[in-house]
């Protein structure tokens, strides 16, 4: 058994860790902001749920917590139990649970203006003190960058052997440049790279069928090839996906015919296959 509270060695309490029954931990990283980390984290969670899995999402973006709204779970409260903090269930069936600083703020417009040390302390709490119970997958959504949040979350998760990280990029060089640095971060911290997703990859005009490569195309795939990591797939820009997330709806149920749905399903399948190997 691991120590539940990560306190000083004088006070080690031998109890079952809150992550003991979480079978697979997957981090979603980028280096770049606005490429769709939270979107992909949410859609991946929904896809895994559709495949019959129990999923948790840990949102460690303390300045810009996007996930509660995407799952229509804003204004919910976090309660405490003996084992720690109870994560928020976003559905009646209790198949998706979520922890985010968004739930701790009274007003969703409140800005959390913290330097590194406070952020590190809360992330440690989020990793150690949330009573997830039994989960097939815990998806960890992160803010952009390679700084306090990323160092802290990797350090705190290390003992639980995460499956690895998915890196999200958009096709342009400016994004790919930042993701290249994130790959270095993964290598330096010993985090296994599950693969790269190229998001916002092409746009099919609903009026005609011209596929306008609004944010260019192919950069993510090219980076995966250069870096020797798996390319998990391209997800096209679909305004209906953006709309669903705005309204906290389940895109995968509402738009099973869309190209974005196919791409996300394919990515989820690869995660599932990888997890079957990595037990």
């Amino acid at each position, binding site marked *: 058994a691991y120590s539940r509270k990560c306190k000083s060695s004088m006070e080690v309490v031998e109890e079952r860790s809150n992550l003991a029954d979480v079978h697979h931990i997957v981090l979603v990283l980028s280096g770049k902001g*606005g490429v769709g980390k939270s979107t992909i984290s949410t859609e991946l969670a929904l896809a895994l749920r559709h495949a019959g899995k129990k999923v948790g999402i840990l949102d460690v973006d303390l300045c810009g917590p996007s996930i509660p709204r995407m799952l229509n779970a804003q204004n919910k409260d976090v309660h405490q139990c003996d084992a720690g903090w109870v994560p928020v269930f976003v559905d009646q069936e209790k198949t998706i649970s979520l922890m985010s600083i968004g739930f701790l703020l009274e007003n969703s417009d409140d*800005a959390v203006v913290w330097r*590194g*040390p406070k952020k590190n302390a809360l992330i440690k709490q989020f990793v150690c003190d949330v009573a997830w119970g039994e989960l097939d997958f815990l998806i960890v959504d992160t803010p952009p960058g390679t700084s*306090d949040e990323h160092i802290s979350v990797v350090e705190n998760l290390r003992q639980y052997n995460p499956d690895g990280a998915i890196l999200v990029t958009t096709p*342009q060089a400016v994004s790919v440049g930042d993701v290249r640095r994130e790959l270095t971060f993964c290598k330096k911290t010993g985090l296994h790279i599950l693969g790269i997703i190229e998001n916002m990859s092409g*746009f099919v005009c609903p009026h005609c069928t011209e596929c306008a490569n609004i944010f260019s195309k192919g950069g993510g795939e090219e980076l995966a090839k250069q870096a020797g990591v798996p390319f998990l797939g391209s997800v096209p820009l679909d305004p209906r996906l953006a709309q669903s997330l705005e309204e906290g709806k389940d895109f995968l149920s509402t738009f099973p015919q869309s190209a974005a749905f196919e791409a996300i399903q394919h990515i989820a399948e690869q995660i599932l296959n990888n997890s079957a190997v990595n037990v």
Partner: protein
Amino acid sequence: QGKDFQLRPNQEVPLVENMSDVPSNAPEYCPGTGSDQAGKSSACQGCPNQAICASGMAKGPDAAIEEIKKKMAKVKHKILVLSGKGGVGKSTFSAHLAYCLASDETKQVALLDIDICGPSIPTMMGLEGEQVHQSGSGWSPVYVEDNLGVMSVGFLLSGPEDAVIWRGPKKNGMIKQFLRDVDWGEVDYLIVDTPPGTSDEHLSIVQYLSAAGIDGAVLITTPQEVSLQDVRKEIHFCRKVKLPIIGIVENMSSFVCPKCKNKSQIFPPTSGGAEKMCKDLNVPLLGKVPLDPRIGKSCDEGKSFFAEVPDSPAAASYKSIIQRIQNYCSTCEQ
């Protein structure tokens, strides 16, 4: 603060860090120079400031603030480009604000990139691979034109794979150096591009420039609620630290298909877009910029969109927004 900081779920979240509290060379769990624990907590062991803090002398502001004020005396206008959200076009806007202001050859423009983890400005300005040189008077900015100088951590890295994996205090130290040690010379406009969020970089830039004075901040958003949510937080941040808001720019506003010319809303303004937010929070909307694939392409190629596609609706929007910013700055002239 720091190591002993713990939250309980039903407890009120302490929203704003004490601004002038953690020096840039402080160790990871520094309690803050203003704290009762200053110099005395276990985290203080080995910190170069320990003796000063323990004596109670450290309660004053960082000495660098005065040094930076002197340096910034030669800078007429300082503009911060913020968002709360990533990927909305801060760097794109900063770069083009710089290009546009520098098109007047009588003006000296400086572009400072304080995104330490994800420095995009070198790529966008066509300066990838450039390095910083030191002279007797300090670090030399990298010049795009005689009247347009740029500084970014990107110029200090040896290759595209180099990652800056730094915690807050080191990032703060870098920002202090950029402001104190770079020889900008006489500058009409200093534009500061920032990373997304409301954290170390944002607190530091406001703190270090506090004595020198900042004209104001331009906040960038896209139309969707997921962006506006974060930008509202940034507006609250600006108000908390008394940073004037020049206005909001709504980027990626709509898309016109190059083939059928029909308009599509790729990022739907489900909650009324920037327009409603600006009305609700009483901040000026500087303008809306449409989504034009050629903008991203120019940025990737390190070229000015104004030079590449001068007659596009997006270029016209940018120019009108920039004119409003210039007007605002001239009312700040003392």
